[in-house]
């Protein structure tokens, strides 16, 4: 299997773990020092300035903080996460680049669909910049993910999922 195909398979399985609320499975796909960041989108005056800032990011999570969040969800008092919502990731435009020994920079575009109870489905789109460790033979681990939202003022529903 080509690296691209293996990475693709990894990302699809990883998304499925989130969509199916198999949080334990998902955590197992992360390195211990995993970092998840969603910088704040902004519209700068000049097209040469960056559209994202990490000074006060939307999200900045570690494996530990995500585990705490998932643990919370198993509580009966996880009001915002109960009852279960509908969630689905659409991962496309996967581009893989080797940046080190068994280290890969993987870019992908992701559309996330989410709905709760009788609400309409809310869609959100973003670009993802992942760092993967591993190889097709031994498998991969996700070491970092940066999510570039395609909207400056997202709705709370668009911010709820992990991208």
């Amino acid at each position, binding site marked *: 299997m080509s690296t691209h195909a293996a990475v693709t398979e990894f990302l699809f399985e990883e998304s499925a773990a989130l969509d199916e609320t198999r949080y334990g499975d998902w955590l197992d796909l992360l390195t211990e020092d995993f970092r998840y960041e*969603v910088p*704040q989108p*902004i*519209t*700068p*005056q*000049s097209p040469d300035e960056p559209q994202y*800032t*990490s*000074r*006060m*990011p*939307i*999200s*900045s*999570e*570690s*494996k*530990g*903080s*995500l*585990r*705490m*969040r998932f*643990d*919370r969800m198993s*509580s009966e*008092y*996880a*009001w*915002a*996460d109960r009852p279960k919502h509908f969630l689905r990731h659409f991962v496309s435009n996967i581009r893989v680049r080797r940046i080190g020994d068994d280290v890969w920079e993987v870019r992908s575009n992701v559309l996330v669909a989410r709905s709760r109870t009788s609400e309409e489905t809310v869609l959100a789109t973003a670009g993802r910049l992942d760092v993967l460790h591993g190889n097709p033979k031994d498998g991969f681990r996700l070491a970092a993910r940066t999510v570039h939202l395609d909207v*400056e*003022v*997202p*709705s*709370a*529903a*668009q*911010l*709820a999922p992990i991208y």
Partner: protein
Amino acid sequence: MSLPEVLGRFAPDCSSLPQTVFNDPEVLDAELARIFTRSWLFLAHESEVAVSGDYVTRRMGRDQVIVSRGEDGQIRVMRNACTHRGTLLCKATLGNTSHFMCPYHAWTFDNTGRLRGVPEARPAYGTFDKSSRDLRRARTEVYQGLVFATWDDDAEPLADFLGDFAWYLDALVGGDGAAWEVAGPPQRYTIKANWKLSCENFGGDGYHVPYAHRAPIEGGLFGTEDTGTGGPSGRVVWTPQGHTARVGYHPAGSGIPAYHGYPDEQRAEFAAKAKPEVFAVLENSDVLHGNVFPNLSFIQTVITYTGDEVEPTAFLALRLALPISPTETEMLNFALVPRNAPDAWKQKSVLACVRTHGAAAGLFESDDVDNFTAVTFTGDGAIAARTDLDYSMGARLPRPEPDDWPGPGESVPHDHSEYTHRAYYTTWLRHLREDA
């Protein structure tokens, strides 16, 4: 229901009020016309426009404005709309410029709002009084680094508008607003809830903490040591202007210093600046949060654990609730950090804020937003429109005798009560009853 009928349903002491204040478009129209054009409104933190030419674009109510620091160093707030035929002047979120040029006919305004250039002014207009076409400016004042503005030229000065509540803003910033800066541009997001629901909650509502936030508290967010007797031991505060706050307390004698969770050097600086009464009020406190009428909320607290190390870390956040429609609100979240704190500490403080009280804070804040949304959701309906909500907590008990708590304003040690909600809506009602 007409607006007078809605207002007529309020209990005289606001211990009961019609649910439709969260859903009725006519109510929002009246709020925009009678509150958001007359009150002092929070716009930005001074550090966002640190040097001349810096600007951010914001809203006052639903009106588009620019907050800009002129070459004279002064901060001004002005409509972000060309005085010729109304085109939005500046589309960026933030930047630095000396002039704003209108994309339609190139009228050019300097960053104090003065109309500087009108192409072909003489042949097109004849005598043209440029000064009559300066950008509409809102009166602007700064208090402890917080930039406020009002459209009402007859409004009382900001100091009078804040009144006794200024003391609590002083307390928040350790007596020195200039010592703080925003961590970065504010988070922005929308929630499907009426704007007041976040404000009334921030202004008090200690009652919801142990229940709405039970899961993260049990998860150790505020630490796992039992600090004592339990039971609500906070204090709620309000002033006649509708400003409200709550100070949460550990049990007396817990030995928690004021400004716990800040670097030691920082605490020393605060100690040098702040009044002794502030220290008396903040000692053993675990949180100070509140709401400046109508829509600027704030919170300062200490987070112990969010999944990484156990390490008490303080943060200070401002929260601005901007109405979009009766049932949708844009939230702006600002994190303030002491300018001189070490970068590594600043990052930890931001992390504590973002993970617990940020736009995507799955650990704490999401449960609040879920409640605000759920109240707004049930407000749709013919029966809902005739339903009154219960804000009577504490109203049927004798008001506690004044004690020696040194904070100004009115306050009671009735932590789990709705005194602050009633104070907020009493002011709200006074404004809404004024003629348009």
